[in-house]
């Protein structure tokens, strides 16, 4: 059961036995939980429900996370303790400061723009005749791997010079040429290039925002809407006073999820510019230092910085959680 399965029936058998084993574990947990009733049993049941999750997380994420923080105080080879030197490098080196600046661009722009577009689009296509089709179009980029996304956007941003019979391959430059302009080397000009890469991320994430927000919009209770309608509320106030407050908790969830995802993203940068031309972000820098430059210490410090950067997002979530509890 724990060996490498090589034929298809063996693989399926292994999968089924794994699922059975899992079901058995869940069964035991639920059986024990069922023994405890009432408020007194709460604690035991709660810990029981959390037990498998905490075990997996402790081994799979907490331990590696702590190990990374520990490593961030060591040098490139991981041998000598160097205190906060790696962090000093991040905040003093000119290149690293550009990296920080870009990361701020990414984290501020991507979640808000993607969510806004997702929300507007969800409202616009709601209940229209082609809703399902229209939503699939926006969802499509979600299901595309980053490698494929890189290829797709190459056909958008590629540059060919304005000479002889050379033809443009990238659509954007072609449009510029059609409009009578000269082709631009889109991915070299900083900070324009960072924004162009952010566009790719927004393109991918808008589908996530749209899907979830669309569902939230559909769930707004009819009585509220009816009442508002009777009051003769206009479209803008309807959006501002009814739609937005109703989906606000969902908006927070979407912003948070996309925000964290954006902090971690590096594939787009890596495949499209390799982090050159001042486009690198923290996650890409982490990958580069760890795997290309073999600087384990600095890589770990950059990963730790990602933990730190997520704190504002955590803080914002606690606040809105508290607010919703007070309501």
């Amino acid at each position, binding site marked *: 059961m*724990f060996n490498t*399965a090589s034929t298809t029936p063996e*693989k399926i058998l*292994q*999968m089924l036995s*794994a699922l059975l084993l*899992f079901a058995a574990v869940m069964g035991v947990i639920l059986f024990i939980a*069922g023994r405890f009733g009432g408020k007194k049993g709460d604690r035991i*049941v*709660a*810990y029981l*429900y959390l037990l*498998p*999750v905490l075990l*997996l*997380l402790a081994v*799979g*994420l907490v331990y*590696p*996370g702590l190990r990374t923080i520990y490593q961030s105080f060591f040098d490139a080879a991981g041998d000598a303790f160097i205190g906060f030197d790696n962090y000093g490098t991040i905040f003093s080196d000119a290149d690293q400061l550009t990296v920080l600046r870009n990361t701020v661009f990414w984290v501020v722009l991507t979640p808000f723009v993607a969510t806004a577009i997702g929300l*507007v*689009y969800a409202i*616009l*296509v*709601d209940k229209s005749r082609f809703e399902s089709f229209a939503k*699939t179009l*926006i969802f*499509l*980029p979600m*299901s*595309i*791997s980053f*490698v*494929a996304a890189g*290829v*797709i956007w*190459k*056909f*958008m941003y590629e540059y060919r010079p304005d000479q002889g019979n050379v033809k443009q*391959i990238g659509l954007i430059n072609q449009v510029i040429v059609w409009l009578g302009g000269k082709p631009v080397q889109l991915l070299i000009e900083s900070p324009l290039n960072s924004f162009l890469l952010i566009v790719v991320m927004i393109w991918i994430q*808008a589908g*996530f925002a749209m899907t*979830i927000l*669309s*569902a939230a*919009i*559909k*769930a*707004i209770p009819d009585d509220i*809407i009816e009442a508002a309608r009777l009051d003769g509320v206009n*479209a803008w106030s*309807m*959006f501002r006073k009814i739609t937005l407050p109703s989906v606000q908790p*969902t908006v927070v*969830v979407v912003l948070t999820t996309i925000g*964290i995802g954006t902090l*971690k993203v590096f594939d787009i940068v890596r495949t499209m510019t390799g982090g050159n031309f001042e486009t690198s972000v923290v996650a890409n820098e982490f990958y580069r230092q760890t795997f290309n430059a073999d600087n384990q210490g600095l890589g770990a410090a950059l990963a730790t910085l*990602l*933990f730190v950067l997520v704190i504002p997002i955590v803080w914002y*979530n606690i606040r809105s959680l508290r607010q919703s509890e007070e309501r």
Partner: protein
Amino acid sequence: MTAATPLTTTPPLVADQPTAAKIAKKRLSSPWASLAAIVLAVLWTLPTFGLLVSSFRPERAIKTTGWWTFFSNPTLTLENYRGVFGGDGSVNLASFFVNSLIICIPSVLIPVSLAALAAYAFAWMNFPGKNVLFLVIFALQIVPLQVTLIPLLEIFVNVKLTGTFWTLWLSHSTFALPLAIYLLHNFMREIPSGLIEAARVDGAGHVSIFFKVLLPLLTPALAAFGIFQFLWVWNDLLVALVFAGGGDEVAPITLQLANLSGTRGTAWQLLSAGAFVSIIVPVTVFLLLQRYFVRGLLAGSVKG
């Protein structure tokens, strides 16, 4: 507000009644609104459309002219797709396809069930350390996958699981948990507490509340998260490479597609065709489950 929602049935699909959005749209329903929607849809589809067209163009044409010239000078070839499906004999997509499915199914079911239990505990139970634990789990979303590779692989080597699907099931499940718990917790909190209280007054324990009251309301929400998790696992390459190795026994289809571009990554034409092949499954899943999906998230927001 909507305590009238039936206890044990899924919330009714919004029928053809006016919704806020509908009214907003009606009021906005100038040609401008429709135009905006169409413009967005076109902008979003255009890049992918370019890829689709490119995947049918010959290699030389892809490298020297833009895909839009296809319309003035159409040259169509299936060569690229033939290349993806093993025109040269060395690619056998079928067995990788099976591997992908074998990897995906448990990697979706396990974290979704575990996260549902945990989210329930966080949303509806009181226990010491609840807030701190929730925050820690929330913050764990940010741990870059890459830092876990070596520590986890060491563990898998020690328990002799390398080269098996177990490594993938366990690691995918673990990585999915923080986000799953965060999202499901949010959905659960939106369920009117009156429902739970009523059930408790009737003497129901946690197990029966979970199964009889919450699960019917949440099943669609679980399915919704399941679909996203499916997408992410389906498109994963890193975890599969590191923990299971790239051998035929365990490697997913993404490995084969990544390798398609050749040792030197020159084959745009194969990549564009390969990208389309890899999109098919996720899009099919989305189309088939879209209705269900919308209902799932609906359940999470009834409180309004």
